[in-house]
């Protein structure tokens, strides 16, 4: 009751409303993503009341996941990558004058997926966090390895498996810059005082996920969006019967995928979409405007919200890049992920989780009543959007440590990240490596001390053994399918 009172206080409700509404608007702008928005705003929540700051960011996360579907349906321009699958079905529906049904399906599915995943978060997070009490340094190291094993599944058609791993390890190498905790000596700081504490991951995150998008937008040849569906006469329809099945499928799949480290909303949406295609009785309508596909994809990407927060706040392993940015917010407020969040900081963590239910309600209302109007946000010209977001990126990079060096760092990460991205390296893997690096090093070094230099410490306990099994289970299937892919390609070439 105490936590409910915090969430339902007027200021908190206003904060959640602003967050969710801003999230829908940001998600609705092509080129702007939830990671970018949350990453940009984390430094600014530093001076806010921690619970309020987290509620604001949580609202943005939930809202942005849904917001991407609006221009995807009405303009064939997905606001976020996670809404690509929605565009495949939503835009043909809009062209056929069925936009209201597509929008309604999208918002209700997003609400269902989001609410279900937050419920799972509320149910399992405290339990999982309690298990973390039994973790010693060896298990912590294995936990980081488990997060890195998730990197393998980040690999897609744009970034090969090897390149995803290289990017992840590169992130871990960048993370070793700074003072060595074991000896107190400086490593690879090049005499720069600003690097003594290491590379803060917030400027890196802003550079990799906000500034890169602005650099790409600035360099785009043209920005033409088909607005014909907006002018077309649209008819209202009821939700088709049996659509709940696809929402349930998406919600479950999205939540599960969200829990796996490294897996993002885009993958969740596509897997849910493909599964719905498989079980649908109207397979022939897929690609031509099938609301079942929208229901599964949207429930899938919003299901990721709660799912991705499960490993983030319980074990400190971010489920995806947005969760990584949110983890940054927890850390800057002194809330280290783990059991303490549900005991010492329960008055902040539980209101944050409960606020996600409210945020889902807010975007449901916003979507049902304002979605067609919000599609116009996608028409904001990049020439206006780029300098504004770039100014916030500079401000956000500076604000956390009041350091101009962090601005340079952000620009360097944006430029370097762009080259890596164009060559097919995964930036999500890079940022995960950067975050997991210190966790892995701390666990490894302490484990080696406890084990008196013997690596067997990492195989000793029962938890460690179970964790190795999970790591292998995460690694073997993608490695096997990669090997098959390489083998097939080799045969075709030879």
């Amino acid at each position, binding site marked *: 009751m105490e936590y409910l009172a915090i969430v339902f206080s007027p200021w908190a409700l206003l904060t959640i409303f602003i967050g969710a509404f801003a999230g829908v608007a940001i998600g609705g702008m092509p080129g702007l993503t939830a990671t970018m928005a949350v990453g940009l705003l984390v430094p*600014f929540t*530093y*001076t*806010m009341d921690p619970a309020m700051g987290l509620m604001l960011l949580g609202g943005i996360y939930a809202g942005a996941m849904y917001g991407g579907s609006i221009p995807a349906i009405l303009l064939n321009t997905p606001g976020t990558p996670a809404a690509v699958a929605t565009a495949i079905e939503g835009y043909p529906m809009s062209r056929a004058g069925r936009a209201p049904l597509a929008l309604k399906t999208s918002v209700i599915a997003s609400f269902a997926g989001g609410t279900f995943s937050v419920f799972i978060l509320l149910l399992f997070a405290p339990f999982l966090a309690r298990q973390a009490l039994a973790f010693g340094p060896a298990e912590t190291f294995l936990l980081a390895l488990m997060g890195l094993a998730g990197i393998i599944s980040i690999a897609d058609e744009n970034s*090969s498996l*090897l390149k995803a*791993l*290289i990017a992840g*390890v*590169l992130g*871990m*190498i960048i993370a*070793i810059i700074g003072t*060595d*905790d*074991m*000896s107190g*000596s400086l490593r*690879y700081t090049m005499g720069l005082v600003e690097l003594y504490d290491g590379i803060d991951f917030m400027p890196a995150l802003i550079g990799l996920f906000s*500034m890169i998008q*602005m*650099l*790409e937008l*600035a*360099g*785009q*040849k043209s920005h033409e969006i088909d607005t014909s569906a907006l002018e077309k006469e649209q008819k209202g329809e009821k939700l088709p019967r049996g659509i709940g099945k696809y929402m349930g499928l998406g919600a479950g799949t999205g939540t599960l995928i969200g829990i796996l480290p490294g897996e993002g909303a885009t993958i969740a949406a596509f897997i849910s979409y493909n599964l719905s295609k498989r079980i649908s009785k109207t397979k022939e309508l897929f690609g031509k405007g099938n609301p079942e596909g929208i229901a599964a994809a949207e429930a899938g990407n919003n299901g990721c919200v709660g799912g991705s927060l499960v490993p983030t706040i319980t074990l400190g392993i971010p489920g995806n890049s947005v969760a990584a940015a949110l983890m940054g917010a927890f850390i800057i407020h002194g809330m280290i992920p783990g059991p303490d969040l549900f005991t010492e900081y329960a008055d902040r963590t539980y209101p944050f989780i409960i606020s996600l239910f409210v945020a889902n309600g807010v975007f449901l209302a916003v979507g049902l009543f304002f979605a067609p109007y919000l599609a116009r946000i996608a028409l904001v010209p*990049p*020439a*206006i959007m*780029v*300098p*504004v977001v*770039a*100014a*916030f990126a*500079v*401000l956000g990079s*500076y604000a956390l440590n*009041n350091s*101009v060096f962090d*601005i*340079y760092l952000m*620009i360097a990460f944006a430029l370097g990240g*762009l*080259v*890596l991205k*164009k*060559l097919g390296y995964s930036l999500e893997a890079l940022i995960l490596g950067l975050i997991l690096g210190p966790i*892995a*090093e701390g666990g*490894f*070094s*302490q484990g*080696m*001390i406890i084990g008196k*230099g013997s690596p067997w410490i990492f195989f000793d306990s029962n938890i460690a053994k179970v964790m190795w099994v999970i790591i292998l289970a995460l690694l073997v299937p993608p490695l096997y399918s990669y090997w098959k892919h*390489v083998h097939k*390609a*080799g045969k075709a070439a030879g």
Partner: protein
Amino acid sequence: MQKKWADRALLAVFILMAVLLYRSTAGYPGIAQSTSAKYVRFLAVFIGVLCLAQLGFGLVRDHGRDILVLTGNRRRFLALLVGLGLFAIAFEPLGFYLSGAIFIPAIGWILGYRRPLVLGLTTAGVLGFVYAVFVQLLSVRLPGIEIF
């Protein structure tokens, strides 16, 4: 430059970095030799092996002639980069408001937006928003000469 050559050059740099990283651990002091140094060596070997494997795969399989294109419009891309650099340099001496009041409309103009009134109003809106929300509400300290 062709993508495959850019990738090979990058992988070669990473391999060189891995070698240097490995060698650097010899200088780690005291207890770090049995802890951090082992971890860093592990990373160096890991990335070195991965890069060698990728380089090998690339040499055998990648016969593409795709060109590495960082941007579709070099002038605008460079303008934004230079603008960002100047914004960062001016951030402390001029303060956020003054440098932002130049940066936002200048970049908007360079990117092809030709409606001064909208650019002016957007700039004023952003600066006003930052002042009201971040400075007044959230007490974020911004550097340099303030115009408010």
